[in-house]
């Protein structure tokens, strides 16, 4: 028993690089081998997001309006946010819903969001200017004022698309005049960028606009109260949310393919936390024994 305790204590001084290697293996092996894996259980908030978009598509009036997909992420969180964004845009395109790409936290967000839309547009035969539009980038310190202005005059507030074309000249904007012509707000983000939508836009029209949230897993837990208060109609939490959404869509995207690596890495962390605590208790016990001796 004592030998076992000493081994556990000695293991506490393991080289950090061995831990790093273990993690790298846990993540790399399932990707390299492409392990078959079950589909995840779909959580209520993800299902609710999916249902929100489905119900918009089924409504003859709402389905003619414009959705806003706000892609406020940068290259740092591509793995989570890009996967979420792809799932959402794919769903919108499948249902033939028109949408606008927009960003205000980082200009890279607009570029990344647009790239996803352009890539999927080829697959779903979407045409720029008629089926989707790029509203460009607005700096974060001006977003509140911009959204306030967009409430009464959306094309006037944004004026031009990212290429400099007047929004009023694009067919997609023909029926889009005010906040009442928006059917959905999608916020894909790794940071605190949801508030401007809730504060200045969501409830500024004749009726509240359904708003859904796709945060990185870090940002998710603090936004659960908004689901209960009705300010959010759905949430796709990090990569696991994206994986659940891909399940609902029936596609094998990155969310699904990364699932096994995510499982193994979580398992490793839990094992290491338990082993670390076991080491602490073993050390205490050995010290007590030495004290008695």
């Amino acid at each position, binding site marked *: 028993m004592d030998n076992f305790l000493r081994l556990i204590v000695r293991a506490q001084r393991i080289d950090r*690089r061995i831990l790093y290697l273990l*993690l790298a293996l846990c993540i790399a092996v399932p990707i390299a081998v492409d392990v078959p894996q079950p589909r995840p259980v779909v959580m209520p908030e993800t299902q609710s997001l999916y249902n929100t978009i489905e119900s918009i598509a089924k409504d003859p009036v709402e389905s003619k309006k414009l959705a806003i997909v706000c892609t406020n992420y940068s290259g740092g969180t591509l*793995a989570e946010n890009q996967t979420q964004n792809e799932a959402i845009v794919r769903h919108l395109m499948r249902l033939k819903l028109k949408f606008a790409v927009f960003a205000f936290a980082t200009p890279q967000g607009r570029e990344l969001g647009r790239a996803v839309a352009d890539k999927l547009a080829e697959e779903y035969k979407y045409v720029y200017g008629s089926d989707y539009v790029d509203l460009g980038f607005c700096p974060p310190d001006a977003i*509140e004022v911009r959204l306030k202005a967009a409430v009464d005059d959306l094309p006037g507030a944004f004026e031009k698309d990212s290429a400099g074309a007047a929004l009023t000249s694009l067919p997609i904007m023909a029926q889009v005049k005010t906040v009442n012509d928006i059917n959905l707000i999608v916020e894909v983000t790794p940071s605190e960028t949801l508030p401007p939508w809730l504060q200045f836009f969501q*409830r500024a029209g004749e009726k509240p606009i359904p708003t859904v949230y796709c945060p990185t897993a870090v940002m*998710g837990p603090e936004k659960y*109260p908004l689901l209960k208060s009705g*300010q959010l109609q759905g949430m796709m939490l*990090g990569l*696991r949310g994206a994986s659940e959404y891909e399940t609902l869509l029936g596609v094998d995207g990155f969310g699904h393919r990364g699932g096994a690596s995510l499982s193994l890495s979580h398992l490793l962390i839990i094992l290491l936390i338990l082993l670390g605590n076991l080491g602490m208790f073993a050390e205490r016990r050995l010290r007590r024994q030495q004290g008695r001796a």
Partner: protein
Amino acid sequence: MFDFLSNDATVRVIYIWCAALCTLGIYSILYKENKVYRFLEHLFLGLATGYTISQTWTTILKPQWWEPMTNDGQWWWALALPAGLLFYMVFFPRHAWMSRLIFGFFFGAAAGRTFQAFAATYFPLVKSAVNIPLMNPPEASMPGAYWLTGTSAILNNLLFLAIVISVMVYFFFSFEQRHPAIRMTSRFGRYTLMFAFGAIFGSTIMARMSLLIGRMFFLIHDWFQVTVLGMKG
């Protein structure tokens, strides 16, 4: 000379190799401190700064300031330049106070927007906190409900209310928490906060692992399997 840059396939191979080398170079810090990592760190800072400069011009100043002023004849935008120069007064000790005029303007604007922001964000939240059914909850009549659903919904709603109150009590520092009832409420609040922080901790791990999976997927799939070995994507 630079014709190869107009070939999409060549450009793709070049940038995937560059990206792979950058990724491996950054991870080299995990083994030990080295010059390759320092080089890439400075390269990243430079590229990020260059990107910010370019985007500030191409997405803000060019379309919203320069073009309306020079193409559309809106000459009054020229006044924005001296106003913007106020920021730079900070570099002149004698006139540094003038930079506070523009900072003050932004402080004031942010404060002014807070009133509407507060009303729109927090009123629905407060309403959701106090407007929870403690009798005949709707869950009891939903599809899939069974004999315990109604009771559990009421218990969950009571718990919800108790947690909101106890966490607020925990953060109430205006007087010393001496009364046993308040001390116990506060302690309950602290424990429930730990549940919330645990949830955040668990989610944070998931987020960080997801990002690493993203890079590993790139290295193994996009770079090694597709670009190096020529396997199908």
